[in-house]
């Protein structure tokens, strides 16, 4: 079952290479729907009380090197898998409604990207994770570079922008490969080398190694998000990317970085995590502030969404590095939430671009006039983006802030400003496009039925989650508890770190919580 989930998109993509141009888009959409079906089926069969891995597959892959083909689902990745399947379905369908150049290759790459992304979420072997994490970029490189649009204002071309993205993100990834191998070898103490994340957790690493390995991983994840300081690739790449591809890229790929912290960094390098907690929190807060402020000032609608993602991912990182179960619960919820809002925004941007021929906020406006449905859908998305009470985003942010308040109150106070700022840029985006004065020569047109079919289910997911966020929280919590306990169970930064086996009681100034209190 889990193998089907992983390889089904690729199988559809390979067959699609040999289909006629007209059919391939539908075939690809069918593939993503089938994948979504498998994912939903697995979510139904998921045992929510269990904190361990389910649906596991584990066979040796390269036995000489200790690499296993090991997959599994637990509370940490279940909903990210669903998110991946949902967004890919939406984006693929949206692209299928439109003419694409060389469609066979385009949809093959889309589906290849889905398999790679699912693989990164599913992998339970450290090296397999690194492999999928790196490989994810390859299809996106081609999609951005070959189907993207060159800038008309003399900025870098699509291929230059993607090259920059590749180099940025692979700086982290290749160092991560070294770090992953070092983790396995140092943990093995000369014995049998294994990359299994579960086994590596038991073996443990000396703190000296944890420190540098932590940063090798952290940099890879922070670049992918992107976080402040390492976000340099984002503006150019976002401008170049074709919008349906950007919807999944922005909606899912950024989350792989945050997920990596939960899956790899917290359990494997607990002492280093505790030690560098504040450094990462500073980066996270800087991302929130920088992302928000940049989102205020940008006029390109893609970049508003892009910079808002920087801010949101900052929130998610902060939630994880609160090092409390509620913070991480909130972070996972927020990853799903953010994916569900940013992908529709990208699709709406594409729809608006077709109507106005521009992506400049200053030249848009008045789109709501004849398009009440489009406006309503966008309004829901915008309100969710600004974490309106009642939306799942509100609950996610609440959990994150709650966790942060309990561990690092100063950081929490600063992070709150991010919530306020998100209201500004989300409303500015909505007003600038939907209200305001309509520029001359631009027609307000209602969303077409076909695009409605794509957009409405995504918005429905947002509404559904707003009504019942426990759907996620309930299932993620056991796994999150276990992951966070790895760090809180390890030495706190105040105690003697080198001693290695005295059990710390507290993290920072916070208390050790055993369960996140049910909310609402």
């Amino acid at each position, binding site marked *: 079952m889990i193998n089907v989930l992983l390889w089904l998109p690729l199988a559809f993509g390979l067959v699609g290479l040999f289909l006629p141009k007209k059919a391939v888009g539908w075939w690809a959409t069918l593939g993503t729907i089938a994948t979504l079906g498998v994912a939903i089926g697995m979510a139904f069969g998921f045992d929510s009380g269990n904190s361990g891995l389910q649906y596991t597959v584990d066979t040796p892959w390269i036995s000489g090197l200790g690499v296993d083909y090991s997959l599994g689902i637990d509370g940490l990745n279940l909903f990210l898998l669903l998110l991946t399947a949902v967004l890919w379905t939406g984006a693929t369908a949206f692209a299928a409604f439109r003419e694409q150049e060389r469609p066979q290759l385009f949809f093959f790459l889309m589906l290849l990207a889905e398999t790679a992304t699912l693989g990164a979420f599913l992998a339970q072997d450290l090296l397999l994770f690194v492999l999928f994490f790196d490989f994810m970029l390859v299809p996106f490189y081609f999609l951005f570079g070959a189907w993207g649009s060159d800038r008309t204002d003399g900025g870098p071309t699509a291929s230059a922008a993607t090259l920059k993205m590749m180099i940025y993100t692979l700086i982290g990834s290749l*160092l991560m490969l070294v770090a992953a*191998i070092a983790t396995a070898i140092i943990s093995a103490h000369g014995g049998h080398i294994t990359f299994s994340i579960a086994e590596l957790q038991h073996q443990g690493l000396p703190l000296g190694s944890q420190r540098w390995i932590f940063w090798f991983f952290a940099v890879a994840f922070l670049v992918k998000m992107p976080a402040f300081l390492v976000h340099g690739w984002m503006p150019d790449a976002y401008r170049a990317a074709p919008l349906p591809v950007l919807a999944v890229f922005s909606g899912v790929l950024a989350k792989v970085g945050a997920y990596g912290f939960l899956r790899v960094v917290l359990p494997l390098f607990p002492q280093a995590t505790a030690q560098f907690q504040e450094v990462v929190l500073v980066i996270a807060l800087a991302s929130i502030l920088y992302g928000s402020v940049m989102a205020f000032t940008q006029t390109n609608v893609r970049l508003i969404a892009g910079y808002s993602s920087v801010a949101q991912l900052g929130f998610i990182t902060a939630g994880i590095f609160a090092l409390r179960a509620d913070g991480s619960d909130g972070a996972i919820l927020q990853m799903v939430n953010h994916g569900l809002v940013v992908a529709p925004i990208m699709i709406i941007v594409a729809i608006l671009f077709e109507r106005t021929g521009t992506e400049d906020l200053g030249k848009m406006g008045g789109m709501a006039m004849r398009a009440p449905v489009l406006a309503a859908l966008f309004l829901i998305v915008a309100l969710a983006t600004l974490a309106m009470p009642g939306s799942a985003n509100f609950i996610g942010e609440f959990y994150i802030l709650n966790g942060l308040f309990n561990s690092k109150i100063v950081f929490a106070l600063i992070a709150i400003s991010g919530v306020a700022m998100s209201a500004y840029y989300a409303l500015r985006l909505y007003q600038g496009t939907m209200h305001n004065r309509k520029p001359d020569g631009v027609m307000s047109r209602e969303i077409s039925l076909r695009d409605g079919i794509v957009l409405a289910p995504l918005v429905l997911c947002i509404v559904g989650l707003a009504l019942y966020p426990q759907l996620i929280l309930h299932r993620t919590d056991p796994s999150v508890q276990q992951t966070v306990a790895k760090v809180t169970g390890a030495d706190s930064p105040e105690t003697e770190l080198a001693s290695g086996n005295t059990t710390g009681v507290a993290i920072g100034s916070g208390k050790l919580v055993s369960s996140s209190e049910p909310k609402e």
Partner: protein
Amino acid sequence: MTFHEPHIDYAGVAPIIALTVGLVVVLFTAVIKPLKRTAPFLTLVTLAATAGLLIWHWDEKLELITGALQLDNLAIAISLIAILMAAVCVLLSIGEPATEEAGSGEYHALLIGSVLGMVLLAQASNLVTFFVAIETLSIPLYILCATNLRREGSLESGLKYLIVGSLGSATLLYGMAFLYGGTGSTDFAGIATGIVHKGLLSDPLILIGIAMAAVGLAFKTSIAPFHQWTPDVYQGAPTPITAFMAVATKAAAFAVFLRFFLVALGPQVDQWAPALAVLAAISIVVGNVGALGQDSLKRLLGYSGVAQAGYMLGGIVVASESGTSSLIFYLAAYAFMNLAAFAVVVARERETIFGDDIRAIQGLGASKPLLAWPLTISMLALAGLPVTAGFIGKLYLIEALVEGDYTWLAVFIAVGSMISLAYYLRVVAAMWMRPGGEKVPGGTPAIAGAAPEADPIDPAASRRWYLVGPAALAAAATVFFGIIPQPLVDFASHAGASLF
């Protein structure tokens, strides 16, 4: 005084005999008119027979000719890589002007001669066979580089290679003399015991000898800073020969590099390992930075070869079984990756007026996907991206390095791969992300590597099976061993284990 005829294991030397016989036969076809066209075919037969005889000895460990040669899995693995490259070189040479100008028989006989040198070198375990083999390998190559008689670049390439190669050989020979002087033995095992027994561990004489031998080998494997000849020679030589040189020479030289340093100089690992590690690091940086601005694909691959040699040297630095295995794995993967790339370059060289300039492949993704895919896969694999043999090769090497406490070199490899993305992806971008068919206004373009003779000589080159076939197969192998690496890992670990 009586002379005892040394015992010769004819089964063991059979591969060498096969090559020698093949060489003579192929050379004869040059003078017998009706047989002129058969040279490529006979060459392939010779190579196949040699490969068969080598595989027959797999998992054996034979000392041949009183210990001058050692036929073990390491030697066989490396020889097979060299033979594979030579076989593909024969295919790529079909229709190459160089074979016509130099004479098909002579061209192929020289190629076999070079392979003979490589097979010998891979087995060499004595300073004398070592040197004889390296010369047997090199001299035919000096000539082959210059076989494109009408092109100035080719002659220059041959001459340059001759001069630099001779310098390398001389340095190597000088180093050998020092080692023999110090230890009194030409035998690798004898040198090792000599060093230990005579207490020469930090004897300056021996250290100078080691340094000079290392420099000589660095010339042959094109490790920086002894790589300056590489881009020029690669660019000037006929492209099939470049492909052959890029991989086979490197493989054979690395085989003896391994045997010489791990067996003969094994006791002194603490002295030479850090020095080689520094060479590897320099090579990685110089190769990757040098490749950045190259417009000629052959020069680009030349510089990339310098960087890749740096990665591979890491496998020797750690002086361990896993290091040796990882080096052999990488060499095998490197053979596939380069084959795919060079086959496409050959095809485009014959088809367009751009020679090996990067413009020759512009827009290839849309117009000739059958050529674009192999080159794309090759570039991604050379850059070390996952789902290719290149990724597994890097993984294997880095694992060996970290195990051997050379994590810093592993980080160098990672950083080097990152720099390399900039030029490998430039090639990929040229194929997929730029409109093709740029029309050049009349006359021949003034670009590097495209002499007036670079006019298309075979407008249908991209449909020739002997060009597309090897490219596609090599690319398929690159991906296959990226997904199912176990067979190649087993092959490499068997070969690596034979030294220990």
